[in-house]
């Protein structure tokens, strides 16, 4: 009896170990679902709505990839990750991709062995202070107490900024944005620093937004974008070009309204290549010819996703700014579909 239990355990362990990690694309196809890592909840970017359905700017990327691969934008298992668990979840294969306000940095790309597949939001680190302190510049913050989310790039930028300006500060490390706001409003810290988009979004929810000012300094570049594991280039290509498809679609004027009409064929060859009526870009990715059409069918092009989730008409109220198309003076730019 004892022997058989032991041998049984060995067999089970052997089977688990023997399963060689298949390519991510095959794995997602055979599973029939995409495992996508998102935040535990940031308004506008990734948050379950009242009926528990995930909505948001980052969520749209997950859904677009699922639609491109599986033909169904709802075939996604959303895995909420914290700043602490996000990289472990991706590296261990618990999730197939991460779309979670994650800054593209050298060490994450090179040392942590991840592959950033593009930028879906260009952000920068800003500072918010109560107006009554009378501070006009971040360089006047000598000796201030600063609330900061721990383990983020903002934490490192903060240390660099104060050191290079030769001024001191007291950090108050905090785990989530909600806690930071609570402490900031109670006066336990003078300054709250994080990505400027998040500061703007959170200030909009304050009782009296006008009592708080955002300082003019933007002390860092925070390019946020989806990422996958190193080493599976086919899968990285799929995520990269799904994001590019959304961006190109906006540039070419392909929207959720005219998608059906244009996918019947148009006189613009790039639109035809994008939507699969000309050439075989889909087959090159190992996907169906209408992969991009499926991806765009979920929520529309990049601009539509932006306006619906975080744009000027939403409570978050972010202007396009750097995130406008390159043709409008922004940084959003996709390599050509050719």
């Amino acid at each position, binding site marked *: 009896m004892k022997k058989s239990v032991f041998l049984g355990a060995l067999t089970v362990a052997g089977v688990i170990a023997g399963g060689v990690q298949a390519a991510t694309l095959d794995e997602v196809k055979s599973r029939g679902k995409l495992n996508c890592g998102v935040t535990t909840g940031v308004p506008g970017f990734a948050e379950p709505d009242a009926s528990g359905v995930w909505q948001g700017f980052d969520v749209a990327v997950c859904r677009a990839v699922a639609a491109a691969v599986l033909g169904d934008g709802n075939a996604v298992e959303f895995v909420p990750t914290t700043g602490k668990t996000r990289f472990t979840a991706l590296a261990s294969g618990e999730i197939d991709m991460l779309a979670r306000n994650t800054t593209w940095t050298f060490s994450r790309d090179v040392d942590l*062995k991840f592959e950033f597949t593009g930028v879906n939001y260009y952000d920068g680190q800003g500072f918010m202070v109560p107006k009554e302190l009378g501070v006009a510049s971040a360089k006047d913050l000598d000796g201030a107490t600063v609330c900061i989310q721990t383990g983020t790039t903002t934490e490192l930028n903060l240390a660099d900024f104060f050191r290079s300006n030769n001024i001191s500060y007291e950090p108050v490390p905090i785990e989530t944005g909600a806690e930071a706001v609570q402490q900031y409003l109670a006066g336990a810290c003078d300054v709250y620093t994080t990505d400027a988009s998040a500061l703007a979004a959170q200030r909009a929810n304050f009782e009296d937004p006008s009592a708080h000012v955002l300082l003019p300094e933007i002390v860092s570049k925070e390019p946020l974008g989806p990422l996958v594991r190193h080493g599976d280039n086919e899968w990285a290509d799929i995520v990269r070009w799904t994001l590019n498809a959304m961006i190109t679609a906006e540039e070419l004027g392909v929207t959720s309204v005219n998608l059906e009409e244009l996918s019947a064929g148009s006189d613009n060859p790039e639109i035809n290549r994008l939507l699969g009526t000309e050439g075989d870009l889909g087959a090159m990715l190992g996907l169906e010819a209408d992969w991009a059409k499926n991806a765009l069918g979920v929520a529309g092009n990049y601009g539509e996703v932006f306006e619906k989730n975080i744009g000027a008409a939403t409570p978050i109220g972010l202007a396009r700014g750097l995130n406008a198309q390159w043709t409008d003076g922004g940084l959003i730019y996709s390599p050509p579909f050719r």
Partner: protein
Amino acid sequence: MTTLADPHTESFRLSMLLNDTRYRSLTFQFIALVAIIAFMAFVGGNLVRNLAAAGLNISYEFLGSQAGYDINQRPIEYTSQSTHGRAALVGLLNTLIVAFLACITATIIGVIAGVLRLSNNWIVSKLMSFYVEIFRNVPVLIWILIIFSIMINTAPAPRDFRGDDPAASMWLFDTIAVTNRGVYIPKPVWGEGSLLVLGVFLASIVGIFLFRRYARKQLFDHGRLIPTFWPSVGLFFIPAILAQLVLGSPISLDYPSLQGFNFRGGITILGSLIALWFALAIYTGAFIAENVRAGILAISKGQTEAAGALGLRPNRIMSLVVLPQALRVIIPPLISQYLNITKNSSLAIAVGYMDVTGTLGGITLLQTGRAIETVLLLMLFYLTISLLISFFMNIFNERMKLQER
């Protein structure tokens, strides 16, 4: 006629490993040991193989690279230019600081509450059972968060101290500032001659020990009871204060004062440390109170009655007869409580206190992505601390045990 023959010595056969009860248990233990080793080797090898396949490797080189982040409580020199290893060390010291403070406070609270819970005064004993039941049955994380949020929402912010008619003022002749960021107290400045004062102070502590030993000897040899409490207190304060006055105040105080955004100068006791310290102390204190109560109840009532018959007063019965015997029951579970405090201090990140879980297991892990390495190191840290506490407390327990001759 029957003779008692020597037991037949049978030569060892392999089948005896399974059939003979003398060897069977050993056989199975050996098989289990081999199986466990094989399993661990398999799991470890699997981990290394998978890491290698993902292009990762186990390496502790990151400990020597620059950390890049700041820490708000630095018992040793640390800047954002220091290494991850040093950040881990700062975190480790912060863990030890809060664990040490909480262990002492919890013991004091626990002993008082445990004794008072057995008081004949109905209100006092009910109050104490109320305290024990409330604190024991709510998770410690909740207590940490409750105390912290009460503190940041009720204590004044530093900006309330500003202006001609401030909303808040400092305590004790403007020497102590209580704010929602922490408590600022005066810091001693060691001037010339302060070593002498310090020497006098240390000498008086030695004096207290000698005096108590003398008093004990008098009690045991001659049955004379010399009061020790007030003389000890006097010895503790008076010589050092006299020395300080005679030498012209070589030790001066640096008072905190409001400059810019914050109080500067003096010693800062961070709000997060206070919240964590008190939450751990009152939470674990409730458990220790129960240990103390169990220890006291374990002493036969006859001991109390006999002591009473000798004419001892209740507080002397407690301190001379009951508690010394009860200690033998109290100390072993007390060791577990100290271990619990140390391990529970890893909840520090909930209030932003940078303990070793916050530095090494938090920021360093996130900045370097070395999850397996840092977690292994953390396990090693906590294991070492726990084993050390266990070791020293067991020595103490050994000394407190009934001496059998």
